[in-house]
């Protein structure tokens, strides 16, 4: 097992390095994206426009050999616009389902909170079950199915905030933030990232990803580690005046993400440090709620500072 992990590590490392060549100074965020993919979760990015969200998604899609699609959400977008439509085919004289943009390995849902709640909730089933229903028929989405949604920070006009139930379905949330001045200067000096992207080739196949998702499941979590995760949840529930009490699903998400992080670090066992690395991203949108991801990050870090690592 250890050998296999070591071998695979190089592949993921390559993905990480290649992405880092295009999006400077965001290694941690890129790694978290990979964690989301490896643990079959979805990612929520909350940010202002123009910090490289789309670039990140496209780069990853290319490197991982995934089929990608992008949905720009607007307030008049309907569920059928993302799932697909049943249309009458006059030649074959039958109704035929035309798949919408959701049928892809990697879907970028841009400005999700601009869509109306009805369309937002259409995404819900897709995210949770990996399948969609249309006209009483249920269709499976491609496997792996990975959704990256971006949302504008709250208070921007024309937004419908995502309800907590939907927020909980995202495994991780990120705040890309502006690049550092040095990184920005590097961007300005360098080539247009879109052109750079054209030169990328895929480092992995979809089958490989699927196989490695299974391997992440096998990363060992000891009792001590589980105790640590449970302590984090309990701490949030004890101080329910400060934090939103965390659900059991959150604990599950934390475990999965920590396993993926350990896997990316080339280990077959999970350490408290793995939990600490992923915890802010896992907890931010859950603790932040309507106050947004940035606020959630502060709260998550605050919470973690008070949780002791069990011995």
């Amino acid at each position, binding site marked *: 097992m250890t050998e296999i992990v070591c071998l695979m590590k190089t592949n993921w490392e390559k993905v990480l390095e290649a992405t880092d060549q295009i999006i400077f100074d965001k290694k941690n965020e890129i790694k978290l994206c990979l964690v989301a993919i490896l643990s079959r979760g979805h990612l929520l990015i909350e940010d202002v426009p123009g910090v490289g969200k789309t670039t990140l998604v496209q780069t990853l899609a290319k490197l991982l050999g995934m089929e990608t699609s992008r949905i720009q959400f607007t307030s008049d977008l309907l569920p059928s616009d993302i799932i697909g439509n049943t249309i009458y085919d006059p030649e074959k004289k039958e109704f035929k389902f035309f798949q919408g943009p959701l049928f892809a390995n990697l879907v970028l849902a841009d400005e999700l909170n601009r869509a109306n709640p009805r369309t937002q909730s259409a995404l819900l089933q897709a995210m949770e079950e990996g399948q969609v229903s249309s006209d009483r028929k249920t269709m499976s989405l491609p496997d792996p199915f990975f959704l990256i949604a971006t949302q504008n920070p709250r208070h921007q006009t024309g937004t419908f905030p995502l309800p907590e139930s939907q927020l909980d379905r995202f495994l991780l949330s990120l705040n890309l933030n502006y690049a550092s001045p040095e990184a920005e200067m590097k961007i300005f000096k360098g080539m247009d990232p879109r052109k750079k992207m054209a030169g990328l080739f895929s480092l992995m196949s979809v089958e490989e990803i699927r196989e490695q998702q299974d391997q992440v499941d096998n990363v060992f979590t*000891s009792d*001590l*580690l589980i105790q640590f995760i449970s302590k984090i949840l309990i701490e949030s529930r004890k101080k329910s005046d400060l934090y939103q009490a965390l659900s059991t699903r959150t604990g599950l998400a934390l475990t999965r993400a920590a396993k993926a992080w350990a896997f990316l670090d080339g280990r077959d*066992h999970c350490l*408290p*440090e793995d939990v600490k690395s992923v915890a802010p991203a896992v907890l931010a949108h859950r603790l932040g709620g309507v106050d947004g991801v940035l606020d959630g990050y502060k709260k998550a870090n605050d919470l973690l500072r*008070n*949780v002791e*690592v069990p*011995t």
Partner: protein
Amino acid sequence: MKAHFRIHPDYTSLIATLVVSSLLLISDVPNWAALSTVLFFIWRLLIEYFRWPTPSRWLTGFLSVIFLVATLYTFKSWIGKEVSACFLMILTSLKILELQEESEKSFLILLGFFLVSSKFLFSLDLIYVAIEIPMLLILIYNLLPTQFMSNNPWGRIQYVFKVIVLTIPLTAFLYVFFPRFTQKFIEVQGLQDKIGISGFSDSIQPGQVSQLAQSNELVFRAELMNEKISSEDLYWKGQILTESKGMLWKRGLLEISEEDPLPFAMADYKIILEPTGRRWLFFLDDTVSIKTENFKFQKTSGNVFFSVDNLSARSQYVGKVLKNQKPISDRDYNVLKSKLQATQKDPAILEIIKGFNGDNHDPDIFAKNLLHYYQSNHFYYTLRPGDQGDLQLIDFLLKSKKGFCEHYASSAALLFRAANIPSRVVVGYQGGVFNRNGRFWSVTQKDAHAWIEYLNSQKIWTRLDPTSAIAPLRLELGAQAYFNLNENEIQSLSKEELKKRLENSNFIEDVEFWFENINYKWNTWLLDYDLEKQKAWLEKYNMSLTSLSLIALVLSLLATALFQFLVDRKNKKTDYEILIEALNKALKKRELERLPTEGPLEWKNRLQIQSSIPQRSLDLLFEFIVSVGYKNKSIAISAEQRKIFFKIINEI
């Protein structure tokens, strides 16, 4: 001279508890013991205040030996709660007097537990339970080590409550299953006569009952189970006095009845007698039998019941009333008659009798005429008849004409005898205060009363209460209410008005009733569950006391073992803990111990930067720590690795 030691503030609550619990016991110990205890407390107070030196241990040790001897001399015994309470009190005060060091705390706490439980054994009273529970809490609180949750007093208090709550199941278990020991076991005769207990003595003379009736002390509580017994029947007999010497009546020789008391299933009334220190029992007229487990009793020929030993603890018994008494035997009747003939008769008295009775010989008509005589001759009922120790019958009838119930009972009995009708004086209590909430009667010394019995024409002892002729209101309203009225009120208000006034209860009275009721229920509950009940209860489940004790013993041993096992398991350190502790210990000097929120890798990184431990050693150490704590256990950890780990730690 010893260096001065001021009592540490930590001791305040403990010492306060000890002082209060000692003072609570004062009424139960001889005066000299109470006095010396108070003196020692004052001495200690002066030491604190004027910063005097504390007395040497030789002195206090010597004093405790002296007091031990004094205690044994007073009680002539070394078993019994009075003896132990007395010595405990002295010992506690001496210990507080010489208090100097921290290590004496546990001894003081131990004394405290004994003191608190002694008072409870003495009284069984709910009010003491209420006072003693906080004291118990304080003692347990003090039992916790000082370092334990030292910065969290609230946490300590919570812990104490937890301890108490955890003891409840075991206490309940013991209460139900631990064999009741009979009263005898904890009752050893001490100085009951000395201890402030009032009540009747074996004789009665004018002025005695009225003195008793000034006191409000509770004598007993009674519950009527038979609805046929009305409040007018509540003549609680105590003593039957047969021998007279002028107006002074004495208990004659009583024949102990050989026959066993009649067994009965349904009791008519239940009495919970406060400790009197005497052998009297109180029972209703026509009581044929009583039943109890608290003491041994005897029955005399005249259906009078006595406890075999003096009663110094609260005791409970039930009684059976049977109307239609049989007439006394001819032999007894002849004895009584011959006694009457032997007594000298004052011609003046005979003259008076002739005046109201004529030549009548029927006892019942004589009784009626006698009552009429009292009524029509301006006799006067008073609680304060003045000092009349050697009052003569003739003086009472012709001159003073005022008295309390004992005067009338005494004179009536004498007049009966002068008319050749056998009679005797009965002392006891009449009525009581009915508790509406608990439906029981509280009888106090205020209800002390005396009346007579005479042999009627059918040769049956018949009750006659002369007071009913002179002060009928005393009987109708009850002593408590009657003595609260002043003379004007008695004269001016009609009976209906008086009764109406009494019916208007006030709030304080309600609260008193309420508290009385709770206290009564508590006492009954404690006393009711006696050995017999316990046995009956066990028999229902086919268990004998012995087998149950055995089962209980085995179960408790098992429970202890299980508890120990669980504690051990809980406290057993995991491998990981041992490793972390070992490394922490090694790094303590350099202050590089693991921070509570630090994971192993973070710790390792910090050590890499801040310590001079070689990288290779660090790698090995943490490799081992991580594999013990976080790696799959199916990969066995070799003893070799362990050895290396501790070797590296030793090198550090």
